[in-house]
């Protein structure tokens, strides 16, 4: 009898005082985080976004560029902190110096950026994008800004099921909102984190992390065309990031 009462008391006390949110230890950030979007749902949302992206942007027909992105991307993904998703790398037929990551590990690099950077520099850019996925920056951005119904609508549409109650219109609206979010800059903290992870992964994959600085400087130097600055619109704080990288890279190489 006393045992039962104690059991009930213990259960009630733990139910009251333990946190109600599920936290997940994220090895990329080293923090316990609250993530409501599970990996499979994130991938399904990504699939929805990919099908819309490929309607608007042409995938590059340059086989050697595609292979270069894929091979380098795989090398980096093999050493990254998040392995529960399959990273997919693709090149878009676009001269703009830009790269983007969709939810679920779908990473796109424009032809312009592929051609402007050498392998070590590209490794940093790809590592940076992988870093956003590994640190779950995109998932956090989505769950903070989009209603869960819209996200689930996109996920089920990506699975082939009829998405939300509004059907195709709702899905298109969701994808537009998602692109809008992806086009917004990440927070300063997220950028620094993705940079740190980018150099970490490029170093672990056998590339020189020092080329991270030259990659950013190259993109900045070629910025006579205002379009080129788009990279810095979605990946801002260039000067500060270069400064931070100069501190991070020697520590990384010394490990």
């Amino acid at each position, binding site marked *: 009898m006393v045992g039962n009462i104690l*059991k009930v008391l*213990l*259960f*009630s006390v*733990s*139910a009251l005082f*333990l*946190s*109600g*949110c*599920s936290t997940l230890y994220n090895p990329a950030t080293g923090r316990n985080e609250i993530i*409501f*979007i*599970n*990996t*499979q*749902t994130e991938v*399904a949302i990504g699939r929805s976004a990919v099908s819309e992206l490929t309607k608007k942007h042409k995938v590059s027909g340059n086989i050697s560029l595609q292979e270069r992105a894929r091979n380098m991307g795989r090398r980096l993904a093999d050493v990254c902190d998040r392995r529960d998703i399959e990273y997919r790398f693709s090149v878009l037929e676009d001269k703009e110096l830009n790269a983007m990551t969709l939810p679920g590990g779908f990473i796109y690099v424009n032809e312009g950026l592929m051609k402007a950077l050498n392998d070590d520099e590209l490794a940093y850019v790809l590592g940076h994008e992988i870093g956003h996925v590994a640190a779950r920056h995109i998932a956090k951005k989505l*769950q*903070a*800004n*989009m*209603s*869960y*119904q819209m996200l*689930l*609508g996109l*996920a*089920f549409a990506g*699975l082939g*099921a009829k998405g*939300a*109650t509004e059907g195709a219109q709702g899905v298109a609206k969701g994808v537009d909102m998602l692109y809008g979010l992806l086009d917004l800059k990440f927070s300063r903290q997220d950028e620094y984190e993705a940079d740190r992870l980018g150099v970490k992964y490029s170093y672990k994959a056998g590339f020189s992390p020092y080329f991270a600085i030259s990659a950013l400087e190259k993109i900045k130097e070629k910025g006579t065309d205002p379009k080129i600055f788009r990279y810095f619109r979605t990946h801002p704080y260039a000067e500060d990031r270069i400064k931070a990288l100069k501190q991070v890279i020697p520590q990384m190489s010394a490990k």
Partner: protein
Amino acid sequence: MKAKMRIVFFCFLLLCRVWTGAFAQPILDIFGVIVPLPYGAAFRQKERIASDTSTVMTYAVDASVTKIVEFYESFFKDNGFIIIGGRQGDGFEASVKKDDAMFAVKIFAQGAVTIIQFIW
């Protein structure tokens, strides 16, 4: 006398209600889809996320994670839900859809209890 009878009858009804309530299967209604909660599931908290557009309902139950996962796996399977995800280590993480209702379910151990979260 009549008044006394009324009081006794009222007490009887109240007891019946308490009695049946204690043994009724607790449920959650998510957009018209009835989702059962395991016996003994205690409501823990309701949160609003994503600029107050989404809801997270959290329950705690004094049963093993395995039992709760099996309970929901068979419920979703038997009731024709479309499922994205499933078992994750010892727990369960999935997004489910039936008719127009879509929501996510997370089940995991927390100390001595099992936590069940519904997000929509």
